[in-house]
């Protein structure tokens, strides 16, 4: 039994348990604002993160708890952030949509759809210019591909041959609008190809397939070939956000996708291949539950940022004093 296979399982389970708890905490009004769950899509974040190194950069969206956890952002700091506490990763200023941990090169959730894409281009430009090895992995949804920013970012990354891994999480809905209602061409790999970017569509429910595709793409990027594009076919098992009554999707469609739950698929694979025993999986689950409990406890005990610090960090320093720099 190699450690890697179980590690993938561990990460997916951590995310699932964490977010299930988030949903409960939302009902208990411990978490507020917008809350977008990643449940059902865990294989994408975990598979891609598994292929990245510490030097790589991550840009994510408002649906980024999974990415943050898989990248090693502390679950307690993440939960505390959603509680709005000063021990949160952004001291409560960001909330669910703006998780950032720069020490992990996790640059944050960007909540304007498409808004993270140009940022990723810039991070990659910095790596390339400064001769650093990093690749920037940029996550975004199918809906984001209709924004002008997407087009501009693809062109810039390709034109400047930048080390960007574009990761399209095609869960086939932009909020309540189905892919076919927002995209004239639903083959999302066509557009990056029209910008000279090699693009591949991959099963996003199979964590191993995700990781392998990401690894291949990253190799090409690290050779200096410029950006690559991966489209992962996936599905969110929950509504778009806690405000969404989810009336626009067919029950049978949801059921069909739930039958391909990435956690269940991978568990089956591990068991079938003899890579894990049932007890291993139970232990992973127990550990994840314990981690979530600890995260909640950590968040509960967090203080509130003093109101005197409200305007702290708007600027690095004050320039209005005479003689200021």
């Amino acid at each position, binding site marked *: 039994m190699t450690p890697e296979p179980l590690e993938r399982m561990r990460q997916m389970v951590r995310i699932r348990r964490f977010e299930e708890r988030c949903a409960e905490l939302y009902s208990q009004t411990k978490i507020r604002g917008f809350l977008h769950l990643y449940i059902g899509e865990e294989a994408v974040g975990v598979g891609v993160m598994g292929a990245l190194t510490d030097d790589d950069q991550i840009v994510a969206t408002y649906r980024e708890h999974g990415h943050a956890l898989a990248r090693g952002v502390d679950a307690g700091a993440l939960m505390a952030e959603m509680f709005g506490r000063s021990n949160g990763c952004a001291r409560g200023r*960001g909330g669910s949509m703006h998780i950032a941990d720069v020490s992990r090169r996790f640059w944050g959730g960007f*909540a304007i759809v498409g808004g993270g894409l140009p940022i990723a281009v810039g991070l990659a430009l910095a790596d390339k210019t400064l001769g650093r090895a990093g690749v920037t992995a940029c996550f975004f949804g199918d809906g984001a591909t*209709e*924004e002008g920013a997407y087009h501009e970012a693809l062109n810039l990354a390709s034109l400047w041959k930048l080390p960007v891994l574009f990761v399209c999480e095609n869960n086939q809905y932009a*909020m309540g*609008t189905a892919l076919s209602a927002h995209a004239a061409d639903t083959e999302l790999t066509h557009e990056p190809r029209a910008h000279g970017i090699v693009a591949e569509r991959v099963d996003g429910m199979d964590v191993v397939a995700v990781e392998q595709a990401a690894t291949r793409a990253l190799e090409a990027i690290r050779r200096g070939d410029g950006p690559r594009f991966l489209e992962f076919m996936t599905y969110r098992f929950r509504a778009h956000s806690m405000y*969404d009554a989810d009336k626009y999707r067919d029950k049978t469609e949801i059921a069909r996708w739930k039958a391909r739950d990435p956690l269940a698929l991978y568990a089956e694979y591990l068991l079938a291949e003899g890579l894990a025993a049932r007890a291993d999986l139970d232990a992973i689950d127990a550990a994840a539950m314990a981690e979530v409990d600890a995260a909640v406890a950590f968040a509960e005990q967090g203080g509130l940022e003093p109101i005197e610090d*409200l305007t702290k960090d708007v600027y690095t320093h004050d320039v209005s004093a005479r003689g200021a720099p």
Partner: protein
Amino acid sequence: MRRATYREGVRTALRDALRRDPRVFLLGEDVGRYGGAYACSAGLLEEFGPERVRDAPLAENGFVGAAIGAAMGGLRPIVEIMTVNFALLALDQLVNNAATLRHMTAGQVSVPLVVRMATGAGRQLGAQHSHSLENWFAHVPGLRVLAPATVQDARDMVLAAFDDPDPVVIVENQVLYPTEGDLDEDAPPVSPWHAIVRRPGRDASIITHGGSLSKSLVAAELLAKEGIEVEVLDLRCLRPLDVDAIVATVTRTHRAVLVDESWKTGGLAAEVCATLVERAFYELDAPVARVCSVEVPVPYAKHLEDAALPSPARIVDAVKGVLHGRI
């Protein structure tokens, strides 16, 4: 007359407009199948079909521009930009095209466009989802800007905007959608272009609009308990400003507190203040005070967000300030 929510007020007007004129169509992200992010168009797809209640891809610049073109071509689009935060992506079309085309072509081109959007903070949505910015729209000649603060206005203003031949931006403060008020669905719309005194008073004037009206009225109640009677003026139309009404209230009370959820620097309150200086300077017995948002990207945590926004307590303080010479 019945009790209804603000979002029902909007919906009633959208339905009316769709029924009245076959050239009308709704356009925006999730206005159809989903029923609108704030449920303002719930049920309308079923009644009018997908051509008249048209879901747009995530492409704010594109679909706002398309609405402008459609208006030029003879349709009467009513666009929903989900929130003002995303409207930043569409400003080129609104400012460079919608606002300029009539003048730039010497009246050849008309742009009978209505653009509604949710604005404001107060729901712990964080810095990228809590902008106000109605002052930006109010800065632009060629646009009109309406800010409904009541359920009736939420309805009336959509209809009035639809009747107007020029581009009108309607800013709907998102905390208002679930609030309730009286709604007369058959009333001929009251002119939306003028301010209304929502509470008469003699000691000072609170001049406000949109989501800040209810906070101002709460403050007025609190002050009344202490024997201070403030007049509360709801601006309603932010461009053109109802200068006469602004001057009139201050001519009655001689003191003004401006309440506005935008950031203070360069917010709408600054313009109201300048208007008072230009038109009612000698009526002022004390400096005008502004109660606006603190100059910070709106934070998520509730206590921080609350501290960043205007509140009845801050308004009460400001009124006492202008009454007692403190500012």
